[in-house]
């Protein structure tokens, strides 16, 4: 696999390669958040918290306990999933806005925890993390996640997640255990958050708690919202745009956040479902079909 990576790396500009790898990681992170917020409708504003748990856990495991790369990644993701499960429990009782506050609070607590966490180097951060993550591993995992996610959302479970977002009471009256599924979505989403964090730390060589602040959570949320809540291609598109745009807009970097903020407001007013949120091949086909008919008549 390393040979394959070397072969590919040879042909790609390392600068692009770096962006591509970050894109892959962002897609994994955003798909996790999409499952929680886009699909199941539980607003989570602390995804960076899960990312940091995965990043630190996997980094410490592979640096100090000699875990293999894959095992460290999985362990990091599993620990993040466990915390996602714990945080998922409040969803039993809380709705949208309150849940958002709890997730923000949780992510802040995690950040403060890592600021006081001796094995993680406190605020100095953790450096010397082995750089196992490369183009091939990231994209193999990302494609696998995309495939599994697609599969999941097309299944009975996926439909149930969407149903919870659309109408919780109606969902319950069709026999959906809304509480269990909300926790499940949270757990699965944070698993992906932790996985993305592990990939990130094994790519960046160095991490510190400030990498995973509130703004990072917002950035991930933007990816999901911009592309289209609940839509996998939408989320991928959102990650694509928001990973690449800052690179393209490097000259106007100062205005980047201004642009972000305005974008969110404009999007919510004019296209609350994101770019691809309610676009379906079916509708496109129908529209194209109609156009063809019209041209025939004229």
């Amino acid at each position: 696999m390393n040979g394959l990576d070397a072969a590919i790396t040879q042909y790609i500009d390392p600068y692009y390669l770096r962006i591509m790898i970050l894109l892959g990681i962002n897609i994994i992170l955003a798909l996790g958040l999409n499952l929680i917020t886009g699909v199941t409708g539980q607003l989570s504003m602390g995804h960076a918290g899960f990312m940091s748990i995965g990043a630190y856990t996997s980094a410490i495991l592979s640096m100090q306990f000699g875990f293999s790369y894959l095992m460290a990644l999985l362990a990091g993701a599993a620990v993040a999933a466990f915390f996602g499960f714990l945080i998922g429990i409040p969803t039993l009782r809380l709705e949208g806005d309150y849940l958002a506050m709890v997730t923000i609070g949780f992510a802040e607590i995690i950040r403060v925890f890592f600021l006081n966490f001796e094995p993680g180097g406190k605020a100095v951060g953790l450096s010397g993390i082995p750089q196992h993550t490369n183009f091939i591993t990231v994209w193999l995992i990302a494609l696998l996640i995309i495939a599994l996610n697609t599969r999941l959302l097309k299944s009975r479970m996926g439909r149930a997640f969407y149903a919870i977002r659309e109408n919780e009471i109606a969902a319950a009256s069709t026999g959906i255990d809304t509480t269990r599924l909300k926790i499940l979505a949270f757990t699965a989403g944070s698993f992906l958050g932790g996985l993305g964090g592990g990939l990130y730390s094994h790519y960046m060589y160095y991490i510190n708690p400030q990498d995973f602040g509130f703004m990072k959570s917002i950035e991930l949320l933007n990816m999901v919202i911009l592309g289209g809540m609940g839509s996998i291609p939408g989320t991928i598109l959102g990650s694509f745009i928001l990973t690449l745009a800052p690179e393209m807009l490097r000259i106007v970097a100062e205005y980047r956040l201004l642009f972000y903020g305005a974008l969110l407001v404009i999007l919510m007013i004019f296209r609350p479902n994101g770019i691809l949120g309610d676009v379906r091949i079916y509708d496109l086909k129908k529209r194209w079909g109609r156009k063809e008919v019209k041209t025939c008549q004229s």
Partner: protein
Amino acid sequence: MIRGRKSRWAMLLCLLLAVALLAGCSSNKEAAEGNKDADKSQEEAIKLGFLGATTGDVANYGIPGKKGMEMAIDDLNAQGGILGKKVEGVYEDNKGENSEIALIATKYITRDKVVAMVGDPCTGLTKVAADIAQKNKVVIFSAGATGTGVVEIGDYVFRNTLLDQFAVPSVVDWMMNSKGWKNFAIITSLNIGYSTALTPVFQEAIKAKGGKIVIEDTINNGETDFTAQITKLKNAGADVLVFTGYYREAALLQNEAKKQGLDITLLGGDGLYGHDLIKLGKDAVEEKVIYYCGFSSDQPSPETDAFIKKYVERFKEQPDMFSAQYYDAVMILAKAMTDAKSTDPAVFKDELARLKDYPGVSGNTTFRADREPIKSPICLITVKDGEFFLLEKIPVKVQ
């Protein structure tokens, strides 16, 4: 149905990505081909990459650093460049973010083909860039990283700062013997690496010299309410407050202390350097804040004097430690390349490692065998009449 045919969408997107990827490859080829042409012109230009933030929280270290670097490059070119080649600086803003500096370092190395990078002023960010530089065999020369674990990354990694672990024992010595302060209070900025790394250095030095730490506390960088900490401090009976964080919080701490009627001197590292310290603290910091650093524009050596004059003429402001260190870094790199008669990082890095007693504008620099810099003397700076003022120069004793 939201999802129905989404798998096709997914495939479409994967295709799109693949196209983007190919575009990346082809433009790489173009770049590679372009480089062949560029190679000729590049033989004339030696490129140096600037690492530092010009926006964001740590911009006040990066901005003067960038100015120092620009001036050094212009000075070099005025003298005919390095080995007869023109020197060119490449400047990007890393905003003080890890992922940004990593991208920028990669860009410098692979697209701009720099031979060396100068910066970053922060230890953590330097580590990220240093890892990339080491792997790509390009020299990185930090002009500000004072924490541990930097040059250990590899033999392409250098820095020319006054290291805390060398400076602090001398400073503590001065506090105890010249000032007679025996009881110390230490406050750490919990959420910045610089501070959490500096605190243990002070703790060790104080313990080793027989001083007493009467109270330890923390604050968060970015907060404004320090009432509780000062109230605690008031009752602790400390002679001096060692604060290892940045200038903003130092000013606010002293403001609060003044309000609560606590008269105590605050001492810290070069994180306290920043004109906002004076702007924010006003009379609360007047002769009540001391910091140590490797550079002062007072009592300059002849080299430094010339540098200051030129700098003031050009930028209409006083140079600071970062402008001086970036300036020196570029000059030291130029010297190494000239002496090694090569612009190949693999060659001139060995020459660089042998640097001894270089009389820079930020003081004398020598690299130890482990490439750690030793700079002497240390300047102790305080605030007087609304200006930074050199209190004393003390020599560094390295064991």
